[in-house]
Each structure stands twice: as structure tokens, then as C-alpha cells.
């Protein structure tokens, strides 16, 4: 079943928590706790030495994972056996894709059971080769849209993205912010006007209130740095799971109220 269909089938505001693969010895515990806490998909970061689109928290997490010896193939091997009932969406930088070559990389994802792929430094114009390889391997290549994306291009992104469209909520890097950017909702609506792919808003969402606000105009949210901050500060799967649960509840409650 395609990633997009699996997401649509949830029939609720979508919640995609993020974790950096290999961040701790028992990091796969986070995947289980996310699933149990009601995640609709999980973004799995494959750590890169030079994460140019990430803020300080995810940089720190990437460095920590790499310092522990994390590698793409090690991480993929660890998830291969897992039986999660939520789809995994890998996210990484293009250099790690090129390391194996696009086809081999996508095949490895597929083999490990990964459903989708996000490559933040691969814009539309450069995405052709990987899009083909991903399609051939049965992995959905998710494209990103940003507040600065002009309309015709937004249309093209919505059209060529698979699984969902990753809407970057603000002009900036990943990381917690005090308030959701003005630009977030507007972008989500603009994307929805030009296509019918689900739209997940990410970057800077950390509180239940922000999640609720974002989900009002998008189909769901991605929460990354807020989770990694907790993990870096020592929170285990249960603690982080509890946090994801509060996000889940806030989103569900809001939907209920609106109904």
C-alpha cells in the first residue's frame, strides 16, 4: 500500500514524529513508543556529517549518532526486523544517497521496510534521477515546499511529490521556536490549492498548541527538534512517548471539537 494511501487511511490529523537513527543504543525503542503513542508515520533521520538545513539540536543529534558509529546501513539493518504498523520515512542529505548510488540506496531502504524518503538538499530540478530510482524501488520520494516557493513551482512540487508534501513552515532551519510562523498556514493552503497530496507542516513545531494551530490548515505536522532535544537531555522511549501522546491528544481533541 502506498505511503499516501496509508496516511489517508488514518482519517485524522497526521502526526509524524522524528528521530535520528542510532542516537542511542536502544534507539529503536523510540520508534515503538512513537507508534504506540499514535504516530501516523515516523521520520527516521539518517545522520550526516554536514546537515546544512538543520538547526543546532538536530546537528547535535547527528554528531552524537555518528560519534556512536551510526551508519546508514547499520541503521537500516536495525529496523529491518522491526514490525511497526506505522510507515517509516527516511530523511537524509543527498551525499549519503550518492554514496551508494540512487538505485542501490532506494533498494536498501525498501529492503529495510522504509516507505518514503525526504532529501532536504534535493530541490525539484535535481530530483529527477532519485525520483526515478525511488519509484522503481517502490519508495515514495517526498518533496519539500517552502514559503518562498512561487506558485507555478509549487504546483510542480505538489505534482511530483509522492506520499505527501513536506511544507517547511518558515524561512529557517529545523529547531524549536516560540511561535508558529505566520507563513506556515498560508503555505499549507497554497499547496492544497494546487494539488491534493496530503500536506505535513514541519520546522519549529514543538508544543501541542503549535501542532493544533498548524494542523488547522495542513493535514498534519512533523515534530523533530522538540523530540531530539528531549532525547539529548536523556529522555527514554517512555518519556518521549508520553510527549508524543500529548501531541496526539491535542490534535485529536481539536478535530473532535471541530466536527
Amino acid at each position: 500500500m502506498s505511503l499516501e494511501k496509508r496516511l489517508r487511511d488514518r482519517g485524522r490529523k497526521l502526526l509524524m514524529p522524528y528521530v535520528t537513527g542510532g542516537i542511542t543504543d536502544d534507539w529503536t525503542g523510540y520508534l515503538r513508543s512513537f507508534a504506540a503513542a499514535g504516530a501516523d508515520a515516523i521520520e527516521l533521520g539518517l545522520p550526516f556529517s554536514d546537515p546544512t538545513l538543520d538547526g543546532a539540536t538536530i546537528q547535535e543529534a547527528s554528531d552524537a549518532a555518528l560519534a556512536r558509529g551510526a551508519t546508514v546501513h547499520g541503521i537500516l539493518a536495525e529496523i529491518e526486523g522491526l514490525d511497526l504498523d506505522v510507515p517509516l520515512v527516511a530523511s537524509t542529505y543527498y551525499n549519503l544517497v550518492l554514496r551508494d548510488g540512487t538505485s542501490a540506496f532506494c533498494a536498501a531502504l525498501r529492503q529495510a521496510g522504509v516507505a518514503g524518503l525526504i532529501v532536504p538538499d534535493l530541490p525539484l530540478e535535481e530530483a529527477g534521477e532519485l525520483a526515478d530510482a525511488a519509484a522503481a524501488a517502490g519508495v515514495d520520494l517526498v518533496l519539500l515546499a517552502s514559503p518562498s516557493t512561487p506558485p507555478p513551482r509549487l504546483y510542480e512540487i505538489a505534482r511530483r511529490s509522492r506520499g505527501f508534501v513536506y511544507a517547511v513552515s518558515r524561512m529557517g532551519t529545523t529547531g524549536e521556536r516560540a511561535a508558529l510562523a505566520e507563513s506556515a498556514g498560508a503555505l499549507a493552503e497554497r499547496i492544497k490549492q494546487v494539488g491534493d497530496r496530503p500536506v505535513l507542516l514541519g520546522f519549529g513545531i514543538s508544543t501541542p498548541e503549535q501542532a493544533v494551530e498548524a494542523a488547522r490548515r495542513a493535514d498534519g505536522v512533523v515534530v523533530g527538534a522538540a523530540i531530539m532535544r528531549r532525547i539529548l537531555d536523556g529522555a527514554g522511549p517512555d518519556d518521549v512517548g508520553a510527549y508524543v501522546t500529548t501531541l496526539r491528544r491535542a490534535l485529536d481533541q481539536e478535530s473532535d471539537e471541530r466536527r
Partner: protein
Amino acid sequence: MKDLAERGRFGDYGGRYVPESLVAACAEVEDAFREARSDPGFRERLGTLLALHVGRPTPLTPAPRLSAELGVTLLLKREDLTHTGSHKINNVLGQALLATRMGRTRLIAETGAGMHGVAVATGAALLGLRATVFMGERDVERQALNVFRMRMLGAEVVPVGVGSRTLKDATSEAMRHWVGATGEAYYCVGSVIGPTPYPWMVREFQRVIGDEARGQCAEALASAVPDYVVACVGGGSNAAGTFAGFVDTAARLVGVEAEGGAGASRGRLGVLHGFRSLFLQDEHGQISEAHSIAAGLDYPGVGPEHAYLRDLGRARYVTVSDEEVVAAAVRLARTEGIVPALESAHAIAWVIRAAGAGELPPGATVLITLSGRGDKDMSTLKELV
């Protein structure tokens, strides 16, 4: 050779591998540059700045004593004589003018040795712009005086404490910062790296080196064109600018890298900082830290055009060791009264080695670009000589 650069690609290299949030900004820069370069007013303003502020044309200086020792004829293209002390200013003034044309009020830049940062601080002061320069914490320590020079010029210097805390991380941080400031700020990349149009644009702003040298060689040499054209390669801008003047001649082009920062010589295909090229990386695809005595060559990648010229066989890339570099710097100082930047000393070092090994035929004519002066390296050299 057709100029592929205009299309944003050099064979399989180049491109614009940036976050979606920077795509529009890069496109704006590209459009503005295309417009500017065909605007005679822009060219004239830049030409005036280069003549009156930078001191161009820079001389082509014969090096009779070292030439005699090596048995070849050396000519030095003197970028060390430019205002601020390296070729970086050629590119910076071009981009700073472009930024004002685009209505931007602030320049963002990364810097390693600090020469690009000083050039940016200078260009910003000259044109009444603000400047924010990112610099790895390790480089902030190693190049303390350049840090102060930038501040003296009114620039804000932001130390970068992540990763290897050198140029690579400063570049990442500058890009991150740009994402949040594309409206008012212009990212002034310091070498022929980064997303399209930077590798092309920076080479075009640096081709003044090669164009001048071509004309000067025609005056200085019976053969009009030298047998060899040699330049050091960090990101590759002084080499690209130099080669641009000779790529359509029979001259052999040689780019000299640091042993510990040899992107062109030992890198593998990859993508970083917005472009596809050759990068030093480990077996897992993680980017390696570069190590060179010359902070300006401490970069794990190389500009896409160099990767392309290498594949074509049109240019050759070689490496020299830190020891050879120090010896070459001292030798040039003692024979010609010129203390080169350690970056530039890489080019000298290879010529010394190649002449000694008979790789350069006796009597060969060799143009070397001296990309900068050695003042900034005195404290490093002091420990070693």
C-alpha cells in the same frame, strides 16, 4: 571549449542542491548576475573599483633568481599585491556590487583563513553595506588578527562552534543563516563552490586574473603563452580565474592542492554546500575534515569546474605536503623578496618539485598565480622555520 557554466553544470558536476527555501534566492542571484554582466554600466563600475580600490592590473613579475636555480622561466601573477592581500577581493567587489544592484543591505559570508572575510568586510564598508561573516572557532583562534581586521572594518564575525569548527562548518552555518535572511541579505560565496550560479559567477569575477595574465604573457614571452599555468586550489577560485584566461590555449593547466585537502585529487563524487563535485569522505559517505597548514585550503571539496576539467584531462591536479609548502615559501622569500601566502606557496612548491624531477623540461615557461601575501601566515611560519 563551450562555456557550460552558464547552464549551471560542468558535465556531471555543479547544480543547485539547496533546500527549497534557497532555490528562489539562488535564482534571483542568477538572474541579477546575467543581467549585470551584460550591462556596460555594471562592468564599468566594477572596472573602476578594481582599478582604483584594488590596484588592478596586478603586475606579472619575473622571478629571475628562482628561475635560474630551477632552470625554467617563472612568471608570477601578483594577486598578493591587491588591496586586502589576496585575489578574494576581485570576486567580492563583483558580488557586493551585485548585492547593491539587487537592493540587498547586508552581505553574508563564510571564511576560513579570513582573507575572504576581510575582503567581504572591505567591500561592505566601501559600498555602505553591513556584513556578517561566519568563521569556524578553530580558525577564529588561528587567524585572530584577521578576525580583528574584519571587526575593525565594521563586520560582525560569528564564530561557529559545530563540527570541525573550520571552513566547512562556517559554510554550512552561512547557508543556514541565509535561509532566514534572503530578503535583506546577499550570500557572498568566497570560491567557485556553492549552488549555481556561484561557481560560474565567481569564476567570471576572477577571470580578470587570467585575462590580465594572458595579455601580460603575450608581452613578456616570445611564445606569447606559457607552457604551464599553475595555481593553488582550495575551493578553486584563483585557479579557475587563472585557467579561464588560458583554457583555449595549449598551456598545460595544473592545480595544486594540499595533501590533506585534495578534493580534486582524492575526492569522491558527492554533494555538499549546494553543489555536486568531488569531496573527501569516508567509506560511509560522511564528509572528512580537511587538514592543511594553509587555512584557505582546508576545505574537503573542490569547485565543480575543476572536477570537470580533471575528468576531461584539460587540467591536472596534484598535491604537495605541508613541508614542501613551508620550504617553498622560504625559498621564494629568499630568492625573490616575496613572502607568499601558504596557500599560494603550494603552487610554488609543486613547480620546485617538478623542475627538480625533470617533469618540467628545462627552459619551460611557467606562469604561477600568487594568490595572496604571507603576512597572515607569519605566526604559523614562526613556529616552523
